[in-house]
């Protein structure tokens, strides 16, 4: 894990692991197998916290970061480290920050967003890192 000294704060958001939302994601990611079966997912899918970044308020904050205006973001790398469980219907604080990463092509910025998720007592529950590569749209396409 790289040092976080150079992270630039964005904002802290309140997020909720709402049971209906968790259940919706559990069904949405349970892709059918070739056999036609669709085995059940765990109660809270391990990737659930990442979709908090899709909350309209958080998404808008991500979009406001320098470089994001240059095109469409492609997901390059995602990590999640858990320090305790995400509880269904639990309320958490998501502290979001970002930094630009070195990349050979200045027209395709590489940005890392780091989210620290903490419970009501301030105890860290998870740390997420999302690396996005922003790809310029092809002219005339």
């Amino acid at each position, binding site marked *: 894990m790289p040092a976080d000294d150079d992270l630039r704060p964005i904002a802290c958001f309140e997020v909720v692991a709402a049971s209906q939302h968790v259940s*919706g994601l559990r069904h949405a990611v349970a892709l059918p197998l070739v056999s036609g079966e669709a085995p059940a*997912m765990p109660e809270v899918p391990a990737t659930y916290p990442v979709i908090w970044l899709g909350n309209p308020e958080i998404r808008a904050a991500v979009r406001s970061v320098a470089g994001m205006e240059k095109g*469409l973001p492609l997901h390059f790398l995602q990590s999640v480290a858990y320090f305790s469980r995400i509880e269904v219907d639990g309320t958490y604080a998501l502290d979001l920050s970002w930094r630009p990463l070195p990349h050979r092509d200045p027209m395709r910025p590489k940005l890392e967003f780091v989210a620290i998720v903490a419970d009501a007592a301030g105890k860290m529950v998870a740390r997420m890192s999302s690396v996005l590569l922003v790809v310029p749209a092809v002219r005339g396409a």
Partner: protein
Amino acid sequence: MGLDLKPGDPLPVLPLAAVSREQVLAYVTCAGDDNPIHVDEAAAGAAGLAGLVLPGMLIAAQFPRLLQLWKRNIRLTDITVQFLAPLGIDQAFVVTGKVVAIDRNGAAAIVRMTARAGTANVAMAEARIVQE
């Protein structure tokens, strides 16, 4: 009691069918993922893609799913997923992996997994698991 695993132990193979547009739409709606490359062919083309592509996190979600199907008595403590190539929504893919390391006297293991469409790796993941 440890996980009773050793490096090289294989994970099962999870063969996933091609994903329908309806499934992609259900996912992006739930996830708040409004990147048009998943639902708008013109936008996907403008980004230099050959067609609509699966959301990366929809692929990534299959890795912990594989772990869950493999062993019920484990807990995922961290996972890193690297997205290697776009995966078209009409492509079937396979997720599998193996144990690559054991630590803490067998109480934790590192597993490496891949998502592959045909001969191309589209994503790879490394996860640390412990006994529940």
